[in-house]
């Protein structure tokens, strides 16, 4: 909605946007009703019971328990409705649908680096298809940032040292603001960009294009990510796995200094102190950066740390590669530390 030359209401460009807006309108309605009631009563009483020569002193009314109970319980009921609605929305916003197109996001002072799993990467721009869920896995290289797309009503913090996720399903082709929404230093207000929503066919075409020299949109505070090329993260991860000599100790068939990683991702891992942990993104990342923190049962704490030797993108690539390692036949629950004749480990 535009009045004169400036908007008063943001565009609705995602499946969640109208949902959030409905709650907003409900909240506005409640607020208007209560504001009018309170202001109306206030002004009405102020006028009707103003001090005049005939009306010099108020009536000694001390209170009414009935009223107190009523105007505690009714507002409480209304707030519980608001709570329920907001909670329902939040649960939906916290659960990315399956089969979402995955994008890996790294925030750093003061730019956004985005990596599609098919290989293309972008700086400060994100191309997405219309009508398909997009799931963002995000981390920061330095301070806390937040990934915010007002038109999608989507926002979540981007934290150093861990992964956070957000998702959206864009409904309208076009370009939409991307803002950093957590103060992060000098160029916080320059850490902006755009989301480019394309028709599915156009998006597929875009994905498979050879990228030109990366176009920069928005101010760029430092050089963009180094290596070019559109290797998929899984392929890049495989190359890294060999280059960093991980393969030396993590042989696919096991029997080396470290456990085999085939089928590990997503499974339940038993640790040396008896506890168990689910091998998710955070676990893999922690195992690379702080290996002696969680030792797998039956193994020694001899893995060196790679803290400071890998960028966040490289960590993500390794995670994607490890995620892709599946035993054949498909592994059941639990880790096969010495899986019998594990077959291919390539992506």
């Amino acid at each position, binding site marked *: 909605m535009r009045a*004169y030359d*400036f*908007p008063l209401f*943001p565009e609705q460009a995602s499946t969640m946007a109208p*949902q*959030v807006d409905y709650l*907003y309108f409900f*909240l506005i309605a*409640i*607020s208007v009703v*209560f*504001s009018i009631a*309170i202001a109306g*009563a206030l002004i009405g*009483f*102020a006028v009707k*019971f*103003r*001090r005049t020569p005939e*009306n010099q*002193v*108020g009536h*000694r009314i*001390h*209170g*009414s328990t009935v*009223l*107190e109970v009523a*105007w*505690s319980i009714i507002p409480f009921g209304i*707030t*519980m409705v*608001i*709570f329920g609605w*907001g*909670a*329902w*929305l*939040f*649960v939906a*916003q916290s659960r990315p649908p399956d089969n979402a197109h995955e994008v890996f996001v790294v925030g750093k002072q003061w730019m956004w680096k985005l990596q599609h799993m098919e290989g293309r990467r972008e700086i400060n721009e994100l191309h997405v298809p219309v009508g398909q869920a997009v799931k963002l896995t995000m981390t920061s290289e330095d301070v*806390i940032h*937040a990934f*915010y797309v007002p038109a999608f*009503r989507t*926002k*979540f*913090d981007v934290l150093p*040292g861990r992964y*956070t996720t957000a998702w959206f399903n864009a409904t309208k082709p076009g370009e939409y*603001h991307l*803002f*950093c*929404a*957590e*103060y*992060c*230093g000098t160029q*916080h*207000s320059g850490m902006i960009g755009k989301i480019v929503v394309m028709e599915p066919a156009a998006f597929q075409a875009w994905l498979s294009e050879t990228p030109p020299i990366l176009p920069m949109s928005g101010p760029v505070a430092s050089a963009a990510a180094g290596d070019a090329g559109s290797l998929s993260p899984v392929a890049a991860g495989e190359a890294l796995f060999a280059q960093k000599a991980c393969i030396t100790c993590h042989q696919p068939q096991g029997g080396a200094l470290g456990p085999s990683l085939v089928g590990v991702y997503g499974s339940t891992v038993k640790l040396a102190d008896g506890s168990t942990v689910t091998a998710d993104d955070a676990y893999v990342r922690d195992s690379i950066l702080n290996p002696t923190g969680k030792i797998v049962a039956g193994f020694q704490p001899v893995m060196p740390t790679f803290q400071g030797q890998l960028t966040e993108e490289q960590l993500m690539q390794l995670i994607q590669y490890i995620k892709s390692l599946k035993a054949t036949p498909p592994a059941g629950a639990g880790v096969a530390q010495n899986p019998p004749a594990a077959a291919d480990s390539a992506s």
Partner: protein
Amino acid sequence: MAVPAIDTTLAPHTEVPAKPRKTYLNADYSVSSWLLTVDHKRIAVLYLISIIIFFALGGMFAAGVRLELLTPKGDLLQADTYNKFFTMHGIIMVFFFLVPSIPATLGNFLVPMMIGARDLAFPRVNLLSWYIYILGGAFTLAAVIGGGVDTGWTFYTPYSSTYSTSNVMPAAIGIFITGFSSILTGLNFIVTIHRMRAPGLTWFRLPLFIWAHYATSLIFVLGTPVIAITIFLVGLERALHIGIFDPALGGDPVLFQHLFWFYSHPAVYIMILPGMGVVSEIITCFARKPIFGYSFIALSSVAIAVLGFIVWGHHLFTSSESVYAALIFSVLSFVVAIPSAVKVFNWVATLYRGAISFEAPMLYALGFIGLFTIGGLTGLFLAAVGFDLHVHDTYFVVAHFHYIMVGGAVLAFLGGLHFWWPKMFGRMYPEAAAKAAAVIVFIGFNLTFFPQFILGYLGMPRRYHAYPDEFQVLNVLSTAGASILAVGYLMPFCYLLWSLKYGAVASSNPWQASGLEWLTPSPPPTENFAETPIVTQDPYHYGTDDDAEAVHVA
């Protein structure tokens, strides 16, 4: 002698004050008698002068911010400078104005008087509390003058602990020190209210101002130490490069947020509860009616203080706290809104069948009710998690808290200042100017902050030095409002000072108000009461036959 002009609207029969007698103000004029005073009233005046200075400083930083935001580009200030301006606006306004404002000025002055005591329980601790405040202020000013701080008043790590190159340490030390000032004030109030009430003054005969300050003091004592230790840890991390909150060194930046907001959320109740106490006193007086629902208002203050400690997680909805935690904090945040709503309903009900007049304090109190209602309702918006994801860290939040902090707390402070000005200084302020200023503040405030709700929903993030062009019109409206608001603030500053010398001499009770403080001369003598009063009735005896006689126009 000439009869001085007295505002006789309410009290045509009050006595004409005699020639100068010994008051707490003229008991001794030497500088050391002020700087070494243990009289709670003088300490209140010392605090009043100090917080006004900090308010002016914080306001100047706000002016810089709003001027910059007139244009979409960052063209007035450099980015770093802008970041320092909003940071220092926040730090000064929160820690050096809002938190101490009503408690340290009106509270210090009135708490002993309202309960019939000669002073607070620990007068020297009270003076120490002011000196600690000044010391903390000095460190913070050193941070400002030495180049500024740019972390935001929320000091999120690891930016504040590792990355910022601004004067974080002196600012952190300043805030750490000032926290103890709050703690000592709270401690003093709690002991005083428990142990030094006049004979017959039972808990449910206490003025609501006292209940409000009691609840606030609970928060002072229980909450402030947590921010002290948190700031201490940030300072430690910065100085020694250890990793308490920096993930690169093994720490957790979200733990900082939990610890920070564990205090800083109750802190906002520190900022508003005293104001609610002031509003209760004013409404009942100018409606000439006992307050409606006294016990509910009294207990709601304590309920807000208690509940306020268990909602901090609503500041972390987008920060990766678990879904379960978010939902629990959300539901509790709605629960904490209810006692506040109950207060608003009771205040409005007090007006019903009253006999209402509209002196400046009442205008401020009525304005408070309207603006606090809007601020509080928008708090409900933010408590809805699914909605908050969109508006978190946008101007929607900025508008929400300014409606409460300025539309609420500052208006209550101004209203209370006007209401008790005659008692504190023995002079009436000029009523016409005061009414005009109240209206100007109300208009300027709404013009400044209402557009920000719209801006926030549109998606304009907080702490932005430059913004997309389409947000400009609303920003210009907001800055225009701010300039009007500034005029509204300057006016009381001028005429209140003027009134100290030229204002009409005030009687002991120009408003014919209830309350033990009004039994003393204006200004009161150092010892407050010649004899300890004995209380035999409920606090608000408006609407009685005696009251009718007192206000009857001849």
